[in-house]
């Protein structure tokens, strides 16, 4: 899901490109399960609506990833192999775990609302109400041993 980057975007074009790569690192596409990448479910817009102030910290950390890619590999972060991207992200995570945690928590919130993801885990993409769900009543013969044991409440 490609979104236009407007002039009032909290991320620069470079930051946004790294942001999408990091989301894909957090939850990559799984074609066998028909699950999209987290970079393809609108996480940017989700955070923009619900928690835009977190972009300050996210932007700083994206800059740090860019700087580490340049200093260690003399390349843009987006041009690194996935292996090197993972190494770089891991190094940042070891220095400060908050960035990846904050971004991951918001990413999974958004991810598990996506209709393709919901379908992949066996859920309809709708509100619980009004259709609801079916739960079977259960096999009450399983209670036979409890019944056979008899009263257990304490007489007074």
């Amino acid at each position: 899901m490609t979104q236009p980057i407007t002039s009032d975007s909290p991320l620069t074009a470079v930051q946004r490109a790294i942001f999408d790569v990091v989301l894909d690192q957090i939850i990559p596409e799984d074609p066998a399960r028909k699950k999209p990448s987290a970079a393809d479910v609108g996480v940017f817009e989700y955070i923009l609506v619900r928690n835009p102030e977190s972009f300050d910290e996210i932007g700083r950390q994206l800059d740090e990833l860019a700087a580490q890619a340049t200093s260690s590999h003399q390349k843009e972060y987006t041009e690194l192999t996935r292996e090197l991207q993972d190494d770089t992200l891991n190094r940042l995570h070891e220095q400060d775990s908050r960035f990846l945690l904050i971004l991951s928590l918001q990413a999974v919130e958004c991810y598990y609302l996506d209709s393709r993801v919901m379908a992949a885990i066996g859920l309809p993409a709708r509100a619980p109400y009004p259709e609801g769900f079916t739960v079977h009543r259960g096999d009450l013969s399983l209670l036979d041993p409890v019944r056979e044991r008899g009263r257990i409440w304490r007489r007074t």
Partner: protein
Amino acid sequence: MPNDVVDVLIVGAGASGAAVAWSLAETRMRIVCLEQGDWMNPATYPSNFQDWEVHYGETSAISPNYRDRDADYPINDSESPIAIVNFNAVGGSTILYSAHFPRFHPSDFRVRTLDGVADDWPIDYFTLEPFFAENDRNMGVSGLHGDPAIPDHQPPLPHIPIGKMGETIGRGFNKLGWHWWPSDSAIITEPYEGRGQCLNLGPCNTGCAQGAKSSVDIAYWPVAQRMGVELRTNCRVNQITVDSNDMATGVEYWDAEGVLQHQRAEVVIVACNGVGTPRLLLHSKSGRFPNGIANRSGLVGKNLMLHPWGGASGLFEEPLESHFGPQGCCILSQEFYETDETRGYVRGYNLQITRGSPPIATARYGVASGAIPWGAAHHDEFEKRFDRSVHIGVCAEDLPEEHNRVVLDDELTDSNGIPAPRILYRTSENSMRMLAHGTKRSVEALEAAGAIEISPAPYPIRMAGWHLLGTARMGTDPERSVVNEWGRSHDVRNLFVVDGSVFVTSGGVNPTTTIQAVALYIADAMKQRLATLFD
């Protein structure tokens, strides 16, 4: 003429206030209820939305300090390991409760006689039995007849579906030879009294969009209003007023427009829960009652009981459809409810088996705990967890101790300047031993049921102070209790308390059905004595 003298003034429109209003309505007295919150709109409940899990955190927070709606008052619970949780609206905390509805046991009313601890109640289970049944009918309670852990009773509606998850845990209990049973639940499983049946939406504890969960704004208030009870919302009571004869004259309150009013009344009934009620009584100071109205015993606010909670979560290899169905209601076990001194503590606990986590909660918990990594392995690990989790909660009986109490905060106030309640509470050694025992038994039950990964919870769980009991206790001795055996203040003969504050002990189960049975019993006692109510 809103401030004419009314016959009965009820403060609080939650579980007990609604029940007592309904019961007294048949007298045709003029009854007014003041509620600081408003009516809830079920169309706004999270289960109306696909992103209900996100709405849950935003709109249905259980702590008033975090939620901070206009109707809420802050609570200073920084000196308690257990935070106070509640909801303020027509319906009170039943808006968010799980509707798990087990009754107290007969032994809960006789703990001094049976176990030599705390005090016996001045009433017993069998006194309350008809009021339990009446409340079951009014609320619409589902359950399965024949539970051998509780005296025989017949819930009016068929039991809640236990599903594959309930069967799985039930088999585990059977392996261990332990009691289990489908929970009595205040959730209607068939159309009932004009209400639609449960649709297994899942998040009952965010408010029920279907109206199948029996919150009292749905189950009691419409009937009480049709019978003539007047319910005034957005009205926050400041204090109960009293005359020179130690009789309550009414209450002072801010109306919906923020104007301070005085509502006069022949009878005042307080139904604000085990924290709100002592707060109001303690704040109602006068020359006759310098330490708060109805507090000559000095016991108002003391003996706070909270039900410390523990528990464990288990993951299973096979999908259990565990995130479907009423979140807090499936099965329970009362194997360890009664005292067995070989366990190292007295009294006991209920095991409440609750449904598994929905997708976002599964992912968030997994990510935060490190169990679900980032990268390609995310999908495998999520799949191992989603739809395969089961939770067992331990609801431990909390014995009364005077040092556990509600007092008025010196600095913190609500938006009207009324002092906030301050909670001074320590979890007792007996409770901690009980929680240790219950946590181990929860792990055993999950193992027996086939769980492949089990996570015991640290205890007491902080965000679990739902059950607010004991702070205006009932008794026959005015020096050792706040109200008499039918809820009337020993000190103020036209002042009644009908909520969980009057509980002498806490039992080891979710208390709402017992709170309501006590409220109906008190209302009945008042009706029986109308001609001599103040004697």
